[in-house]
């Protein structure tokens, strides 16, 4: 018991634990929409794109990095959506071009000018060292905003996720709802970037939601379960990260993977069947001519 309480005497760990739990909860919560929309690749792409903005803002206006990198992320998301809709380039190819270019720019800026904030390695894999009060308040703010958006737009988000064509015909402004979702996704990625890390944020968007899907057939319960699993992964991962002296994001994702394996062992083929359509949802709702 004293071993568990021991790291709590350090202020940096208390802050880290709070941020990890909130990050896990936030990514688990919003991840449900991303996974069910078959948009896991967008989470992966956006985290890399935002890294470019993150590096640039560290260089030019470190104090305003949340605003700048958030704007960068939102613009990347809108560009991806616009390119994939209006041209012959598919969403995956659009993401491949826009986000990797942005990521490469971030790497170049880090290499050339260094940073006043987290190190290159910490930005990639996450760290709980040096978490500022601004970052904590930023994360709390984004979490509250996300919960408010989902609470107030619950039905239209569900309708446009399940059946965008019929939602559009029923008077829902699908493009506007998608832009809203992309905006809160960008902000969520940005707010959790420093703890989870650029390369691992996408995993935490996907893993809790997939585990939750294996456990329930109800959308409401999936939202609650995914949020809970994300929180648990954040808390346990942070503790293990402290004891094992490995980057926090790495350990949080490994805990998520372990929970996935345990749930898979318990639910077996039934759990796997439930996740079968997650990568093909978009295609299944738009194939008819």
């Amino acid at each position, binding site marked *: 018991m004293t071993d568990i309480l021991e790291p709590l005497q350090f202020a940096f760990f208390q802050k880290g634990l709070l941020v990890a739990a909130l990050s896990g909860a936030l990514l688990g919560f919003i991840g449900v929409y991303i996974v069910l929309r078959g948009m896991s690749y967008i989470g992966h792409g956006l985290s890399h794109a935002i890294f470019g903005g993150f590096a640039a803002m560290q260089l030019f206006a470190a104090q305003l990095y949340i605003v700048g990198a958030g704007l960068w992320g939102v613009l990347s998301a809108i560009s991806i959506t616009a390119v994939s809709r209006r041209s012959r380039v598919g969403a995956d190819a659009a993401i491949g071009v826009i986000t990797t270019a942005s990521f490469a720019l971030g790497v170049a800026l880090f290499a050339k000018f260094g940073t006043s904030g987290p190190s290159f390695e910490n930005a990639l894999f996450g760290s709980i060292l040096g978490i500022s009060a601004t970052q904590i308040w930023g994360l709390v703010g984004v979490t509250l905003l996300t919960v408010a958006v989902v609470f107030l737009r619950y*039905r239209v988000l569900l309708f446009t996720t*399940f*059946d965008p*064509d019929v939602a559009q015909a029923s*008077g829902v402004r699908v493009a506007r709802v998608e832009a809203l979702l992309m905006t809160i996704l960008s902000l969520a990625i940005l707010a959790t970037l420093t703890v989870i890390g650029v390369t691992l944020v996408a995993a935490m968007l996907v893993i809790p939601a997939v585990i939750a899907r294996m456990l329930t*057939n109800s*959308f409401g319960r999936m939202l609650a379960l995914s949020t809970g699993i994300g929180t648990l992964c954040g808390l346990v991962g942070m503790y293990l990260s402290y004891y094992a002296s490995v980057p926090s994001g790495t350990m949080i994702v490994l805990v998520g993977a372990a929970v996935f394996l345990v749930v898979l062992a318990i639910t077996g083929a039934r759990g796997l069947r439930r996740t079968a359509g*997650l990568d093909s*949802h978009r295609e299944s709702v738009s*194939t008819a001519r």
Partner: protein
Amino acid sequence: MTGTGVGEALVTLTDVSAGYGNTHVLHDINFTVREDQFTGILGPSGAGKTTMLRLLLGSLKPQSGTITRAPKLAVSYVPQLETVDWNFPITVFECVLMSRTARRLLPWATPSEKADVASVLERLGIGDLSHRHIRELSGGQQQRMFLARALLRKPAMLLLDEPTSGVDFSTRHDVLHLLADLHEDGMSIVLTTHDLNGMAAHLPHLVCVNHHIVASGTPQEVITPEVLEGTFGARMEVLQHLGVPVVVEDSRTAG
């Protein structure tokens, strides 16, 4: 059943061409849906039937031509069962309630909404299935669930994409009767089908489509060897049974 409709025009397609990207699926479509209409859009796979529904629905913009709608027209759409993601984690109740999005900010259903959903599910004979996952329903029950979602909006025009595709004989019969009842209640209905004997021959009005409108009229008028050849590209023989046309494969082209 009047079929062709006698009231005000709900949606009018004038010289409409439509498609996806650079692909043109429909050319020069002139078609009006009126109050009290019950029409089947008949054609082979890939002929543009679903595209025509999407134009009526408003989810697809025409590449050329104009579409005119009655003001504040409430339209509901029942998708093709094959295009639905049946793995999506929702119950029948959650799915039906989905269509109530207007003026509602809170996630949970009000008592009156719960009563409305229960009432429409009861009317369609699936009142006891509201807490089941959508995959646990039979084909006929899945069709009824989407009808329930559509009816909850109290539409003036109901559009259905291949409502009897992939369902058994008895379900097809049930769906036809259900739609006839809704039409009797004054709802305009447009559906797509490629099922000649099981569906099209029993509808009051048909529009035959193969990238353009080949013919329109009653089943007696359009289910003829000539029109069917123009629509499906194959010669078929048409027999009459109790006043209903029955299509059989032409023995000269079979095999």
